[in-house]
Each structure stands twice: as C-alpha cells, then as structure tokens.
C-alpha cells in the first residue's frame, strides 16, 4: 500500500504509467458538515429492514460508517449487500428503520448530488462513446466548461481509459465498462462514494492503482462504502461489515474480526461468524493491527446471531450462492 505521506497522489501502476491527479479542493459541504459535525457518522442505518413481498431481505440492520472511512460489506451472494447500499444511495427505501447520510434522512434529493454511486450492473449508454457518457453524467451533476473537461480527463486517466475514450461503449470489454462506471461515480467528486463490487473484472494491476486512488480519496475526506466478494480486497477496508442472510453479523476492522474469532485469516473469520449461533454480543477494541490509521478508534467487533442458525458447509462461503441467501 502507498505510504500515507504520498499526498501528491501520483499513482504508479507498476508499468511506469504515471497518473497525475491534482489535489482537489474539498467540496463545500464536506468541510462544513463533516468537520463541523464530526460526531455525526457519514452513513447511519437504524433498525433497517427491507422486505420484498414476504421475503425479508434485510433484517434490523444497525450500522454507522464514519467520515473518511473505507467500509466494506462482505457477504455471500444474495446476502442483501446490494439492497443495503441502494438504500444508502437513495434508490430504495427501508420497509422499517431509517437511513441517514451526513445526518440527512434518505432518500433526499439534495443528498444525491453528494453521493457517487457505482451500481453492480453497469448502467451505461452503449450507443454513446465513453466520453459522451461522462459528458452527460458530468452535466447532470452540474459540472460545466473547463471544470467538466478537467474532471473527465482526470477520471479517465485514473481508470486507464484515456486512449479508448472515443470508442462506443458497446465496443468496450466487460472490465472497461466496469472502469467507466467507476469513473462516472468519481466524476463529481462526491463526499460519499458507494461502490457495489467495484473491481469485478478489473485486472490486478489496475485494481491496485484503483485501490490506491480510493485510499487517497479517503485520506482527502471521502467516505467509502463498498461491497465485495473478494477477501484480499476486504482486508484493505478500514472496517468491515459481515452480512449474511440479511443480517449484519459482525463489524470491525479486519484484524479485529480475525482476532476476535480466534482465527488467522479473514476467510476463516467469515466462516466463524457465519457459524456462531449463540454467545454474547462482543463489543470491544481489538488490538491495534497497526496497518490502519486513526479511524480505528471507531472500530469494535460487533457480533450478531443469525436469526435462524444457518449451517455453513462450504469452504468458500462467499462464493456459494446457495448459502446464506434468503431462500426460506
């Protein structure tokens, strides 16, 4: 990972590709709201449940994501990750409970300009070029003139699509589309970034540089909420929420989760929390893993019991779509 002293954000993908992005001024609202009300979490869910028909996809989720934190939601397919982040993005509403972003109850139109959202499925205009896609979304977010072209240039550099910007998106590969979606989410420099499996289909080299950018964004004040299937990516998050069958079964830093479970890897920790059926809710600080910064002071392991003890018998639960889904 990059040294935290590297504030110039010069990203080196390893091939000598230099990506320069200037330090952006923090958006107005961020300096006011986030600093002025630092006690307020950037994202807060209170007793959130979401039902689709009879199926309860999320059950009583309580979650706080602090400002400038990179928070990862980890869970098997069908666990409810997308459902959760959509509610934070204002695209869906809880059946019960409340969702707040920067202290504002969602969905709220005025917050939408301050949230960057990257959907799990690429929502792009295939019959337009990448440049035209960016141009459209930039205009929708109110960017204009020089600022618009500058931001478009920056995000395209970041995701490594500058050369292909004139291509029709229909001629893009899956990974290129994914990168373009990410670029669009970053375009208007949102204070809150919601990424639904952002690095799926992106090669390790580019993935690394994207992660470096995400970390740099976090250092500069952006709050990130992302979902992931990938353990090594989860390990890079400042804090993790393990979600399974619609329940948030544990939250904490990766190291805390590992040590509290008494195991040695995140994979094992994930299995462990999935299996726990009884036991007191554990709160407390894990030992400082030393790899993260001061955001750690917010962290603690918080454990819930799955509603109906599901047994996990898969080696790699996060990739097993049949387990943990709310099929019952």
């Amino acid at each position, binding site marked *: 990972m990059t040294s935290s002293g590297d504030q110039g954000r010069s990203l080196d993908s390893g091939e000598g590709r230099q990506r320069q992005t200037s330090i952006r001024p923090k958006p107005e609202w961020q300096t006011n709201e986030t600093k002025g009300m630092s006690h307020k979490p950037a994202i807060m869910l209170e007793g959130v449940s979401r039902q689709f028909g009879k199926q309860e996809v999320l059950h009583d989720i309580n979650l706080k994501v602090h400002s400038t934190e990179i928070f990862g939601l980890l869970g098997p397919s069908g666990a409810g990750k997308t459902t959760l982040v959509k509610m934070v993005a204002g695209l869906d509403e809880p059946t019960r409970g409340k969702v707040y972003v920067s202290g504002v109850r969602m969905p709220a139109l005025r917050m939408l300009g301050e949230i960057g959202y990257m959907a799990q499925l690429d929502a792009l205009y295939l019959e337009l070029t990448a440049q035209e896609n960016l141009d459209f979304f930039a205009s*929708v977010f*109110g960017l204009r003139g020089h600022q618009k072209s500058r931001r478009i240039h920056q995000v395209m550099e970041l995701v490594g699509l500058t050369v292909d910007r004139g291509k029709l998106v229909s001629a893009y590969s899956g990974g290129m589309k994914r990168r373009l979606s990410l670029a669009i989410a970053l375009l208007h420099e949102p204070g809150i970034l919601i990424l639904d499996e952002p690095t799926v289909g992106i090669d390790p080299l580019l993935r690394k540089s994207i992660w470096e950018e995400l970390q740099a964004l976090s250092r500069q004040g952006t709050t990130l909420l992302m979902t992931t299937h990938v353990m090594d990516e989860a390990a890079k998050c400042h804090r993790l929420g393990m979600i399974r069958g619609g329940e948030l079964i544990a939250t904490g830093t990766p190291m805390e989760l590992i040590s509290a479970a008494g195991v040695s890897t995140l994979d094992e920790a994930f299995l462990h929390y999935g299996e726990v059926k009884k036991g007191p809710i554990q709160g407390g600080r894990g030992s400082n893993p030393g790899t993260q910064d001061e955001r750690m002071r917010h962290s603690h392991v918080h454990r819930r019991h799955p509603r109906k003890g599901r047994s996990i018998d898969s080696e790699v639960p996060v990739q097993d779509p049949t387990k943990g889904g709310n099929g019952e």
Partner: protein
Amino acid sequence: MRVRALMVRILRQFVHDRRTLALMFVVPLFVLWLVFVIFNGNTYHPKFAAVDVSSPWTQALTHQGAVVTSYKTAADALTALKNHQVDALLQLNGRVPQVELEGSDPAQTKGTILTLQKALLSAMGTQKGLPVLQFTYLYGGANMTSFDNFGPVLIGVFAFFFVFLIAGISFLKERTSGTMERLMATPLRRWEIVLGYTAGFGLFAAIQACLIAWFSVGVLGLMMNGRLWALLLTTLLLSLTALTLGTLLSAYANTEFQMIQFIPLVIVPQVFFSGLFSMDNMAPWIRGLSKIMPLYYGADALRNVMIRGLGWRTIYPDLLLLLALSLLFMGLNVLALRKYRRI
C-alpha cells in the same frame, strides 16, 4: 440545465444510431410515396358492353369517360362480362335501359353506376331540353383524388406511429438497461427526465413533421388549401402526443416486444377511428370511442387545414386538446417514475 444535458444526450444517441434515424425520417416518406402511387393512379374508367344501343347513349357514356364496346349479341356481351373484360352490360329493352353489373368489387360497381347515371342525365337533358345539372364544390374539387382525401390522415398516422414507437422503445431501454435507475441516483428530478425526453425527441419529431409535410405537399402534390404553419403545428402537436403517450406506456412494458404489443392495442384502433374509413355508418357508441383518441383530433385538424383550407379558428379546439393530452401524459409519466424513486 440538466434537461439540456438529457436533450444533448438523446441527440447524440440518435446521431450514433443511423438506422433509427432512417426509420424516423425516411420510412414515413417511403410509405407515403407507396400509398400515393397506389391510390393516385388515374381515375377509374368503367368499361361497358353495349348491345344494340343507340349512339346518343354511347356518346354520353364516352363523354363521361367510360369505354364502350358494342357487341352483336347479348350472349357475346355476357361472356365478356363473365370474363371480366367489362364492368357492365347495357341493353335497351325497348325504351327501358337494362344494366347487368359485374358486381364483385363494390368500389368499381359504384363507379360504374355513377358514370351511367351521369350519362343518363345528360342524354335525357339534351333530348328533352331539360336543364343540365351544374356541380360546384365547397371544398375539394372535381379533380380531388382519394389520395387527397386520406393523405392528411396518413400524415397524421405516420407522424404518430413512428414517434410513438421510437420514443417508447428508447424510454423502455433506459429502464431495461439500468440507466434509469442510475439516473435516479443523480440529482435529476423526475419531471426533468420526462421533460428532457420530450424535448429531445420533440426535436426529432419536429424535423420529421417538416419532412413529411414538405414531401407530401411539395413532392407528392397532395391537396393543400390551408396554411403551411397550421399543417406543421398540427403534425408537431400530434407527434408530441405520440411521444408522451409512448414514453408513458413504456412504463407498462418490460421488453421491447411488449412495447410492440401496444401497436394493435393503441395504434390500430386509432387508425380505424381517424377518418381513414367513414365513421358515418358506425353505431353511435362506437363513434364515441373516437373522442378519446388523439389521432382523431389530429386527423380532423389536418383535413380541415389541407382539404378545406381552414385555419386557426376551426382547428384550435383540436390542437388545444392534443396539447392537453400531451401534458396529461407527461404528468402521468412523472408519477409513473415514482416506481424508481419516491422523491
């Protein structure tokens, strides 16, 4: 501003999609031309087989544009009628003319009878010194073809059909491709989306309206007795109604195929009630149905402008109604988008 962004995007999508552009701009002209060559052929000249008919009769018939062939015997003439060589067999039983019609095509039969009656009138007039009837026309004229009659309706039908389909499918694609949901994660308001779509497609609808008007009047020589602006305005308002109705109905379709299914449901009945077929013989309650169909008002206004040469004072109720319908459809669409985001 955001509405403009949407407009620009739709414009660009069109520019990249040549085929849809062609469907909107070229196909209506082609179909209009096709209808023109089919219906604008020279007026039909009925053919008569005459057996033992005196020359004033044949002269009067020929004068009315009929083709008269004399046969020696009635049997020969009947054979000609059976073989579809002639439309009618004319005999004189003493002083009483007797006509046998081929009769399998109502339109031809009507034309034949009409020609015969005209000839009879003029023949009797000259014989007995009766006054010959003089015909004048309030609208239209003796040279008006059937294409002139339903051409205005066709302009309406095409302006409606293609815009309905293209706008509906584009809006649907926005939903199926997930971009609609993506838009809902932006500060775009629902009404801005609807307005942006209406404005973006409205621009193309306007170009299409101009093209169709120019082609049908300037190239095909369709009867045009009114003002050009009235024609353009009516066509444009009709397209606008089609555009807003198409985008609204796309909310109730999940696939492009389901959008196509709206054609027999929404378009075809409107064509029936638009005046392409005479509605005078319909039961009154059926005729009442036409009152809820946008195309009925558009076609009515178009006919008033093009055939009757009437202007704003006559057509404004139709136009206001079309405008009101468009606004209603837009409003309903803003509500329908609540499905994606409540605010």
